[in-house]
């Protein structure tokens, strides 16, 4: 019986089986009507969301798989077998996009994972102005991405940009931030970290505030210095949050699109900022090749599925 909430008249009370008299209060039949009525109203509350999910989430999920194995030529859609996937794997841009995406992810983790943690640890020590600093860190998260990205585009300008001006003051050579294929991805990551680090910082701060002070006191009694306290108390105590955020950032950064799209028009110099999602976008909307776009999407899905699974398992264990 798939429905534990529906009472089952036959099994529940044998004496009433086969009788067709009007239901007495509490009789199985009445219970059944009540359950039925409750279910009708419950599904009435659900139906709107379920329809939206069906059309715009579940159906596209199925369609993604179907599309990946179809191709459309001259308006006729036929099964294409593995040809979309083999097309994608044989596209040199595919490997470059993965290299770029992994580079972006690695850099973004180096900056976007470590920086917020250090910032949170420092902020947590402050007895003053914590609210102000928290506000500042989260401010860029609230900006429309077009504003923050175009701002950074100005700062990166090789002619009048603030970054080169800063390097000049420090007597360092000027850089072609977005035009040099060697550092264009780093430039994208710096902008992206500025835009997005607020959320992670605040989550770390909340986690740090949950660490019982006794642990630090105990560590001090054992003669632990600052670094050993961080290593033996702070990090173990926040390990779950740290690993959850790490996974979440991996999943999010591997899907990066908006920042490179706005900063370097997607591809960047010599394709150096073409990410996997930008390649999906190109397949679908520049080449009208939905099959290959879906096939590449499947590859991304498979790569990220592992991370998602670990994330779900970890967040379940955090609920308990």
């Amino acid at each position, binding site marked *: 019986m798939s429905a534990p909430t529906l009472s089952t008249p036959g099994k529940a009370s044998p004496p009433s089986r086969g009788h067709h008299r009007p239901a007495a209060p509490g009789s199985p039949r009445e219970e059944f009507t009540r359950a039925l009525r409750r279910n009708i109203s419950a599904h009435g*509350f659900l139906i709107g969301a379920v329809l939206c*999910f069906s059309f*715009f989430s579940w159906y596209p999920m199925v369609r993604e798989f179907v599309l990946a194995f179809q191709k459309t030529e001259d308006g006729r859609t036929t099964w294409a077998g593995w040809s979309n996937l083999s097309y994608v794997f044989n596209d040199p841009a595919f490997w470059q996009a993965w290299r770029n995406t992994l580079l972006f992810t690695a850099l973004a983790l180096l900056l976007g994972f470590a920086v917020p943690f250090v910032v949170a640890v420092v902020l*947590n020590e402050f007895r003053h102005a914590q609210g102000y600093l928290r506000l500042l860190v989260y*401010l860029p998260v*609230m900006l429309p991405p077009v504003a923050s990205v175009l701002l950074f585009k100005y700062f990166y300008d090789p002619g009048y940009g603030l970054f080169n001006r800063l390097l000049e003051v420090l007597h360092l050579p000027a850089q072609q931030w977005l035009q040099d294929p060697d550092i264009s991805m780093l430039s994208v990551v710096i902008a992206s970290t500025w835009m997005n680090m607020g959320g992670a910082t605040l989550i770390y701060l909340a986690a740090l505030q949950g660490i019982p002070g006794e642990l630090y006191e105990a560590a001090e009694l054992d003669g632990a210095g*600052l670094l050993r306290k961080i290593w033996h108390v702070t990090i173990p105590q926040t390990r779950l949050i740290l690993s959850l955020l790490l996974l979440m950032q991996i999943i999010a950064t591997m899907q990066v699109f908006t920042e490179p799209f706005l900063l370097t028009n997607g591809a960047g110099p010599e394709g150096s900022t073409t990410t996997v999602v930008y390649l999906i976008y190109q397949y*679908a909307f520049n080449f009208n090749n939905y099959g290959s776009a879906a096939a590449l999407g499947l590859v991304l899905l498979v790569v990220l599925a592992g991370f998602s699974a670990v994330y779900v398992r970890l967040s379940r264990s955090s609920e308990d």
Partner: protein
Amino acid sequence: MASNTLVSRRATAKPRPGRRRSGREPDLGRQRTLISPAQLGRPRGKAVYWIVFALVVAGFTLVFLGPLYWMVTGGLKTTQEVVQSPPTAFPTSIHTENYSQAWNVMDLSRLLFNTLYYAFGALAFQLVLDVAAAYSLSKLRPVFGKVILGMMLATLMIPATVLVVPQYLTVLDVPIFQRNLLNSPWAIWLPSVTNAFNIFLLKRFFDSIPRELLDAAAIDGASPLRTLRSVVLPISRPILGVVSIFAVVGVWKDFLWPMLTLPDPNKQTLNVGIYSLASGVPENVLIAALTIASVPTLLIFLIFQRNIMSGLTAGGLKG
């Protein structure tokens, strides 16, 4: 400093006002952290604390407010001054007309109106449909409720960008209804309802509402809808606030989806509209437009910062 619970933190903060230097130091009796209070109390500790503190405050102000300052003042400069090197800290002459020019040339009022329309429409749809769904899944518990919830949560496992292409194709030709939603606000509103994370947050909150409260309402003869309106929703204000803010901000910040589904320049959002006009206007006007586009979300943030920040951490881990 015997215990470090929240309660004792509040309690110890009060009775020792004598140690406070000023009213701006509310937290001397706060929960202790990495560095011991004794260490901080020593002259050397104090000096290090204040130096680090000053550096961090100055650095953060520069890093996070500096770009905003540059943006606001950049919108007041002449085109030559904006692209001049070295840049000027203050505009040599104030050109407020850049802002009115940005407003008129880029038709910001339309873009702003569109974005508000999409954002608040999405908010309305999410509030009605997602709240109803979460209430049903949490309290009415229909047959297959667990399956439906599971299928909704499963969508969180699928990277959003992977679904963009099939979702776009669905919007072009919605099955059964045979409608093309391109350039229609429905293309933003309906997919925004499929926010499994919101449903999860709402359901978890509703789960914490005691059963007895709802039973009492039911005994008084209240229908499920009436119970939702008069009992559940009033208690759920905090979570509704969090969900609402994230719904509005989500639409406000989205880029790829509105760019694909609203190609008509008259229907575009601020993000997409400014991006597509960016190359056609002088720098100072563009910067003024960016400032104008940033004001609404910054205002939302400053007004609701408490809700946003607590929602961020209480609501789990969605950055």
